């Protein structure tokens, strides 16, 4: 066996490093889903009347819709009646200081490197940590309060800021948007809520760490970020989950609303458990993420690094409604072993002079399949709209697949839409060039791959960029084609 093959085997056999289970007592609902469960979830959360009705409406819609099958994915349908729809750590009092928090939870976060303790001051990250659906601790609340910024769990927001929630929830992703969004609307248990008032520039990066912890528990997060006129916020989301044999379902909904002159920067690193090297287990990730540039001159940018999940079905989209609004989508998706990813974006241009940029990089290894599926839709009203899309795929190994499915619709003659995509392996001459300059093949590959993804990684906030690079290196290292 050559050195290269050794390296490939090393990396192929790498076990999921964050795969551990925290032993915390859980409060779990019986398996299955019916109207009673939906009501019970709502009651558990002390939700007002309108939420119960909203959930039931969503549930009834979900019952009569069917799971979409158009994606380039092959998987066994989750058995929705076999899942338990609510799991929360028992006894969830509000802590005032870290000392009161269950030490085991703290241990979990420590392993994941959540800067919940001293580091929080150094890293400047406010963390709304979520363990299986219920917010455990929220930091930086004080600082944010002074500026009028609301950053809390969605359940709290439903109770305490119900006017805002009522106005905006479901306005970007309606309950009948798609199968998974309906399911989420019916049974979501927690998530984050952020509101940035007029003219405020959020001084810290808002960050939530999600973590699935209970076997057989579907995770249904709901995120709502509202940036009022002239405000700015950078929002981070990162995921990591422990090793499991059964497929777990994750169907989150994220809604972003940018009003006039506002800017939202949304970044995520997704590292759910991808299953073992036989393709067994792993998370199903069916996420609906959508933002709306509601006011003029607003901006939404999506940056995502996808390394995990057995199956990913995810299309962060933007509706460019306000004139002169701008949206960007930067994505790196790495798949290994039997992972499957069908991800991309949708840019819907409605306003005049709207601009969108799509940069997507896919890297496939092992027996995985990585698809980019994106839509650019220029409507008739979008005078002078401009789009540029670039999707590059890199294939490492002869058993993986890389696919590109763009949909480009244009109905305006003054709009310019460009799309380009390439698929290739790392060229021999590139490696030769590096070799010639004294780099061994392994370093050459890692250099080239890093360069390949750099354009996207550079868009991540500092803290995330480091984490993402580490993750990428972990999967890529030694994968000499």
């Amino acid at each position, binding site marked *: 066996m050559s050195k290269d093959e050794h390296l490939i085997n090393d990396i192929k056999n790498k076990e999921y490093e964050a795969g551990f289970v925290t032993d915390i007592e859980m409060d779990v609902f019986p398996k299955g889903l019916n109207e009673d469960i939906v009501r019970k979830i709502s009651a558990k959360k002390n939700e007002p009347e309108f939420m119960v009705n909203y959930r039931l409406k969503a549930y009834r819609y979900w019952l009569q819709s069917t799971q979409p099958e158009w994606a380039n994915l092959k998987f066994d349908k989750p058995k929705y009646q076999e899942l338990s729809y609510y799991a929360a750590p028992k006894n969830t009092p509000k802590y005032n200081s870290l000392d009161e928090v269950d030490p085991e939870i703290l241990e979990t976060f420590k392993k994941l490197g959540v800067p919940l303790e001293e580091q929080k001051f150094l890293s400047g990250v406010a963390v709304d940590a979520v363990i299986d659906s219920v917010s455990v601790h929220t930091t930086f609340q004080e600082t944010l309060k002074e500026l009028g910024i609301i950053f809390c769990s969605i359940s709290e927001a439903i109770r305490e800021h119900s006017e805002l929630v009522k106005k905006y929830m479901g306005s970007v992703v309606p309950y009948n948007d798609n199968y998974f969004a309906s399911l989420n609307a019916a049974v979501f248990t927690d998530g984050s809520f952020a509101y940035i008032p007029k003219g405020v520039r959020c001084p810290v990066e808002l960050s939530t760490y999600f973590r699935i912890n209970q076997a057989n528990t579907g995770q249904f997060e709901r995120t709502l970020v509202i940036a009022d006129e002239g405000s700015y916020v950078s929002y981070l989301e990162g995921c990591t989950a422990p090793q499991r044999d059964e497929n777990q379902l994750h169907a989150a909904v994220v809604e972003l609303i940018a009003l006039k002159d506002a800017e939202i920067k949304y970044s995520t690193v997704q590292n759910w458990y991808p299953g073992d090297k036989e393709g067994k287990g792993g998370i199903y990730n069916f996420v609906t993420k959508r933002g709306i540039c509601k006011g003029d001159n607003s901006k939404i940018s999506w940056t995502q690094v996808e390394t995990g999940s057995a199956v990913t079905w995810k299309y962060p989209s933007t509706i460019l409604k306000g004139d002169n609004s701008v949206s960007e989508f930067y994505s790196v998706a790495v798949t290994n072993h039997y992972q499957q990813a069908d991800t991309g974006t949708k840019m819907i241009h409605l306003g005049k002079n709207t601009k969108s940029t799509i940069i997507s990089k896919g890297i496939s290894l092992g027996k995985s399949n990585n698809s980019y599926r994106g839509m650019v839709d220029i409507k008739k009203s979008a005078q002078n709209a401009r789009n540029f899309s670039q999707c590059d795929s890199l294939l490492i190994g002869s058993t*993986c697949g890389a696919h590109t499915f763009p949909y480009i619709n*244009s109905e305006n003659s003054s709009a310019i839409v460009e799309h380009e995509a390439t698929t290739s392996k790392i060229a021999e001459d590139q490696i030769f060039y590096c070799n010639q300059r004294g780099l061994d093949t392994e370093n050459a590959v890692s250099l080239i791959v890093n360069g390949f993804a750099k354009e996207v990684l550079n868009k991540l906030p500092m803290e995330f960029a480091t984490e993402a690079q580490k993750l990428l290196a972990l999967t890529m290292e030694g994968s000499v084609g």
Partner: protein
Amino acid sequence: MTQHKVLSKQDLLSLFEGKKSFISDIDSHKKALDYINANEFPTNKTEAWKNSNLNQLTKHKFCLPENKNENEVLEDTFAVFNMQPYKISIINGKYSPENSDLKLENSKIFIGSLKEAKEKHSDLFNKYYNKTESYKDNVFASLNTAFAEDGVFIYLPDNIVLEKPIHVLFFSNGREQKAFIQNRNLVVIGNNSFADILISYHSVSFDSVLTNVVSEVFLEENSNLNLNVFQGEGEGTFHINNTHFIQQKGSNLTTNSAIMCGEFVRNDLIVDLLGEYCNTSLNGFYLSEKEQHFDNYIKVNHLSANCNSNQLYKGILDNKSSASFFGKVFVARDSQKTDANQSNKNILLTDNAKVFSKPQLEIYADDVSCSHGSTTGQLDKEALFYLRSRGISERNAKTLMLYAFISDVINQINLTPYKELLYFLLNKRLKGDKIEGLCSIKICPSC
């Protein structure tokens, strides 16, 4: 809720009640019928037909053409100037010897009616007919397989270089009736052989017709085929075309499709690269206006290593017209060293025109170089300004730029007389001159 009218399968099937298959044997006929019974006509929910609305078809009631003037000799205005081809004509799906001119120097070559070939060359017919199983592609293709009456059969044995091009003319004649016309073609190019083929579609009346064509094309080892397709059927024509190519080792295929006429045109091209070292180049352009809809649907299946494929489709859309481009490059596992490119470029002249572009790559092999590009926009303002600053009127400058835009595609044609004809027609069209004739394009430079 508004009631969506859907093209009814029963309406079209009832036309054939009591009719048996003319070309297909019992087995193929049955398989095709089974497919029709099991599947519906594509709707806008069908992914492959999403942007092509067949609902307009429901406005018409089609019937089978009555061939009253079967032996009518048509004017020779459709011939390409300066080209002396082997000429074969099909009128309303039936071979018309009166309008054909076939003096073959080699008795082994066969150019003629498919129905005739079924009797005279049954071995060849059985070897190739329905072998692409294209009836499985959609209900139109299976309708064709089940009920088509005739079409063209072109067979070139091994080691033949045809010096004259072959011009296949399809006439649709919906005179006094809205005819549903089916053509079934089979082309076989033997080992090391070479052919130039021009296929042109024309109508000889104003009425709406629905033309449904299925062609199977086999390129044997090291063969060469240049296939040009000219869509010149008149206004109100619905044209649905399925062409399936099978390429063996070392074969070269170049196609060029020109769509300038018709109400609704759907062109399906499927290429299976079965052998290594094949080259495929699929080009086309479309000029649409009014409420025309042109749809190009292309699939190139790289099933073998070391093949190259290229797609270049360009279009200019005016008024309320719409166009759809779907191009898929599929690279199977172990089809290493594949080099595939796709390019689709569109210019919208009005805000009422629509373009749907879907260039797709599906790749399962790693040592490949595949790319695609798609642009939709308007003319480059700086280039326009440059021309204006040289004293060229805005109208002329625009015409010049549009002409250059489409020239990229026309330039790739190596059948010179046809190429010149296309340039002529393009120029005429861009200048806004009405192209005379029975609303279809008569291809003679004098009109």
